[in-house]
């Protein structure tokens, strides 16, 4: 069970959160302009990184805010959290 430092509420137990997968996959502004290939890329294809990954988490059972987390998926260590819309920290 991780401890996640919600950028709004502070450090809380993992059970209050839910993961939203990889971050910075922006929903295309004009989906109809995309080929099936490009749409599938948005919809399904993931880097699924082993190592430092930028991802989205939601403080589901707290403030209900979505935010970003920089986590190393090879050891689950969280390096940083930042709010939606904020620039990701440089590695």
């Amino acid at each position: 069970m991780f401890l996640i430092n919600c950028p709004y509420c502070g450090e809380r137990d993992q059970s209050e959160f839910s993961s939203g997968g990889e971050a910075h996959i922006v929903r295309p502004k004009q989906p109809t302009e995309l080929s099936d290939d490009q749409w599938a890329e948005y919809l399904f294809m993931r880097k699924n990184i082993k190592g430092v990954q930028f991802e989205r988490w939601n403080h589901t059972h707290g403030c209900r805010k979505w935010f970003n987390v920089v986590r190393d998926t090879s050891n689950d260590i969280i390096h940083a959290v930042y709010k939606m819309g904020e620039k990701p920290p440089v590695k």
Partner: protein
Amino acid sequence: MKNKYSIFSLIKNAFSYHENWQRAWRDPEPKKEYDAIIIGGGGHGLATAYYLAKKHSMTNIAVVEKGWIGGGNTGRNTTIIRSNYLWDASAGLYDHALKLWEGLSQELNYNVMFSQRGVMNLAHNLQDVRDLKRRTHANRLNGIDAVWLNTDEVKKFCPIINTSPEIRYPVLGGTLQRRAGTARHDAVAWGYARGADAMGVDIIQNCEVKGIKRNGDSLEGIETTKGFIKAKKIGVVTAGHSSVIANMVDLKLPLESKPLQALVSEPVKPIIDTVVMSNAVHAYVSQSDKGELVIGAGTDAYVSYTQRGSHDVVEGTLKAILELYPIFSRMKMLRQWGGIVDICPDASPIISKTHIKGLYFNCGWGTGGFKATPGSGDLFAHTIANDEPHKLNADFNINRFISGDLVDEHGAAAVAH
């Protein structure tokens, strides 16, 4: 030729204090070049190599394994084998595997202890009943031996299940596939390894792939911790680490790798002689030949390569176990572990060519790959040897995620008004 295993060979060797047994497989250094390389020495990878050699006469091949063979999900799963899948494509795939399981010990001359003790899936709400009946009807018409059991029949088949109508989610029935069961996971990897090795396949352990060298859209070979190895064809069977290999050639796959946990109790005398699975009350349990209750927990909902999941998942699983089997409350958890499973959005695998000539992926088995081991190896070998899928794995291509033609085995989300 390897010496054949039998009771007679055991007796013979007893006289020499078992000091004359041959190696089960060699420990070769990699050659400079192979006709094909399989990355990943788990059950699926070793089976692929075995069938490439056996059925397609490709013996100048190697299996490269980062650690020790069978050390990934092959050695970490709860060994459930069944083929009662809903869609025709899945049923075809898994029943092909099940049929291979039925003769596997003799085929490999290695007792994989395939035990057809039956697998029962329980229904706990009305939508469960609809879904399981739908599956049972489909199975029957597909020639798969699944039958529907009502609550009394469930109780009769496995008397220790709490079928009281008073429990929170009473058992409303279930399906039973009698040909289904369990097998000894390590033996599968070792049996295939021994068989493949005997036909000349090099099994190279402690050899991590660091890169894949390509020239445009064609392959040249792999960079490994034991040097560069040339290969015309490469089959990737690295389960949770599929994306790691895919990222080496900038290939994105529709996969997420998540921790899946399992646990065993201390061993006890036989108390449950079948496999019982419940989706709604998330509890999977069987008993190993050693007497341990083997319990499958769920996956965590986040990507992780740590082989360790959250305690909450284990707690939730045991809560479900005690709901269905309150007699197990005083049993003790002996060992708990995790594996990394690669999950496709439609909960079906990928056994497919890629846009890079000679590069093949066998992945996305999620939480249920063990049962498919022989079938997966056979079909993947076919795909690699012929550069074309077999008709049984044609539907499990990567392109389905582009066209939308998924093989969605999630079933209904059990939502109702």
